[in-house]
């Protein structure tokens, strides 16, 4: 087991270099002059362009630029944006908010998705099953930005229950509606995934055995059935956490949440290579660590899965 963990951690190294280089190259190697539109209708003064070019090493080849960037990164310097703000500070401001939002979204999708999935999976065809099927189909087919904007306009502007934007503190209460918007798609997937998995395992041999042994139904469902059925769901939630950490671009934009998603969005828009690369490095780490945790949880849930 420890060997497995070590191997997985070592795998981080090439993945780290590969992704960061790709991102760096994609951001900085795009054709066009990054200073072309910086000074409005007028071209920027040459002294300004020269200074910025030197500051961001834009005269070097992309490889040299990348290694200079990495060198700084290893000394804890995430670089600076064009407007002189340290990227480390930006990430430091944005990350707690995004983590909070992602956890709320995951909690919402796990609680609602799992309960809906378990209920329909156990009960089989009927009114509730149809209801869940319809509502999840609906949620899956609606893009996140539509969900977010509809929630914002109906609950915010029309009914006045929530504020249209999240304040600077981004408290848990404020993040619930954005969390619902963000988690709605995955919520639907989790419900469907759980339902299928439960329905499949309901007739498995080990369930029959457990029932035959006279175990109470709650134990049969809670321990035997759920434990096995939840594995695919867990995988899904695991990757979803990674995605939510970085990918809340749309939701964060709609509710004006100062998180990682917004940071990437602005970074790409303004061609701020340092910001984009910095955030992506972090996201790669989160992704890898979360999927490692999920893999390890498998072994706990199902003793048959071992990694040696």
């Amino acid at each position, binding site marked *: 087991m420890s060997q497995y963990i070590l191997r997985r951690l070592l795998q981080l190294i090439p993945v780290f270099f590969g992704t960061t280089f790709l991102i760096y190259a994609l951001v900085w190697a795009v054709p066009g002059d990054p200073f072309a539109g910086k000074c409005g209708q007028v*071209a920027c003064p040459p002294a300004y362009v020269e200074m910025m070019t030197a500051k961001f090493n834009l005269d070097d080849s992309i490889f040299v630029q990348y290694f200079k960037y990495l060198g700084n990164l290893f000394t804890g310097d995430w670089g600076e944006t064009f407007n002189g703000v340290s990227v480390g500070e930006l990430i430091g401001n944005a990350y707690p908010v995004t983590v909070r939002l992602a956890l709320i979204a995951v909690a919402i999708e796990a609680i609602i998705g799992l309960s809906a999935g378990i209920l329909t999976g156990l009960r089989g065809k009927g009114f509730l099953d149809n209801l869940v099927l319809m509502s999840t189909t609906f949620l899956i087919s609606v893009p996140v930005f539509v969900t977010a904007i509809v929630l914002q306009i109906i609950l*915010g502007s029309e009914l006045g229950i929530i504020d249209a934007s999240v304040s*600077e503190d981004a408290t848990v209460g404020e993040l619930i509606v954005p969390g619902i918007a963000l988690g709605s798609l995955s919520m639907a997937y989790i419900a469907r995934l759980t339902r299928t998995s439960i329905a499949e395992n309901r007739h498995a041999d080990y369930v029959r055995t457990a029932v035959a042994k006279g175990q109470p139904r709650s134990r049969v469902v809670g321990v035997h059935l759920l434990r096995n059925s939840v594995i695919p769901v867990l995988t899904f939630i695991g990757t979803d956490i990674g995605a939510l950490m970085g990918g809340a671009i749309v939701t964060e934009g709609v509710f004006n949440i100062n998180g990682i998603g917004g940071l990437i969005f602005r970074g790409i828009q303004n061609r701020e290579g340092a910001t984009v690369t910095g955030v992506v490095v972090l996201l790669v780490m989160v992704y890898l660590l979360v999927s490692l945790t999920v893999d390890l949880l498998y072994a706990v849930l199902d003793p048959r899965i071992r990694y040696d």
Partner: protein
Amino acid sequence: MRASRGFWGATAVVATAALLLTACGGGGSKEDKGSGAADANAAVSVYGTEPENTLIPANTNELGGSKALKPVFSALIGYKSDTAEPYNLMAESITTTDSKVFDIKIKKGWKFHDGTEVKAKNFVDAWNYSANGKNGMQNASFFEQIQGYDEISVKEPAVKEMSGLKVVGDHEFQVTLKGPFSVFATKIGYLAFAPLPDKFFADPEAFAKAPIGNGPLKFVSRTPNQNMKLTRYDEYQGEDKVKFKDLEVRIYTSQETAYQDLLSNRLDFMEALPPAAKAGGKYKTDLGERLVEGNLLGISALAIPYYVPGYNNLDLRKAISLAIDREQIVKTVMNDTYSPADGYVSRGIEGYRPGVCEFCKFDPVKAKEFWAKSGYTGKLTIASNADGGRKEPLVAACNSIKNALGVECDFVPATDFGQWRSIVNGRQLTGMGRSDWSADYPSIENYLNPRYKSTGSSNDSTYNSPAVDALLQQADQTADKAAAIKLYQQAEDLIAKDLPQIPVWEEKGVGGKSNRLKVAKLDFGRLADYSSIEVAAK
């Protein structure tokens, strides 16, 4: 069992409902209407975007940064928000006999927010720093008329000071220009000409994080991507004092969200409206009397580059201009947020005359005649960045041309403003291109020199007319303001004959305010006129 399953279903529903309900934070809009006095201790929030550059006056020229910096710094002159007319703000007097040497006296007793007095040398030092090529300031070229600019603006300047700047006393300094430039006294109200305290020169980088100015509001704090907070500077002596206490420039990722906040009175001021609100004139019913209309100093035109084969053809340019139905496009596509342009200068600028551009009317019959005369064949194109609502009016212009002339006309999009400007600056246009201009300071000169002088910094159509150049130069050198304006107008007349750019429309400037604000005006540079804002007392 059945009963317990029913119970489960019910809990799920209740749980969801509870989640939704807990979300009701501090919402609820208050419908307080100001009955009388203004609340001098109120806080005001305005829509903002992340500054593009460091927060140093000479390095700030876009809206995001200007919103926070402009009220922090007071320049020598200010501009009245209604008329854009310049008045002495920090300056006691600005005198010149030849428009070449300006003697500037500043008011005594003004202080920076750190308590040090504003002296003449704070202006001179600031201008020298800003023009110095070593410091790479974006607005360095604003100082180009000053004697010695050419020596200091290079990358490794041998001098540290411009020879044209001389401190005469604590409250007096002298500016010598390279040659007479009559508009200089109007120009120095621009943010780049603000004074900087001694603290700045010790550590410019730290200063950019917490600027210290001499304006009506002082800097409190900034959270990148979140907000900038300012508060009233109580010892401020200028006439543009503010009538509220705290200002928050709240940064939004999307205009739509800000607009939702504005409608529910969580945000107090927006100087622009999102395209969704403009569509179908929705903003008029949304905002009602909360609509704020301004008088922006800017003009939209189509540049017809002389370097594109076939386009160097006066009849063609006349035909195109006459084929655009400005009135209708402004009304139907832009929902009255613009008005048709009829010259090269904005309305409201001293020296503006209606109808200077005789071919800026819609006249399909005449257009056809000129089109036939031009002998041009092939299709026409209009290029522009397609974001931010730029595309729709230009597509409409194309359609108008298509209908009037019976020629193919296509809109050619560029992905963003950066890419767009690199095409224009690189002289790579293959047809007409959008060429919008916002004046930096309210003067007829600022509409003509940068755009139509052969060496102009924003001469997108590569127009080159020795007669126009000569007139502009002569106007620059004319000390008498009225006489100078006459000369600028003569230049404008010549430009209107050559039609290097086709003026299309002028932006009115349409914003909105919350119902907390009794008064809020929009200034000519599309910023809230902070000194006009009054919050209704509760």
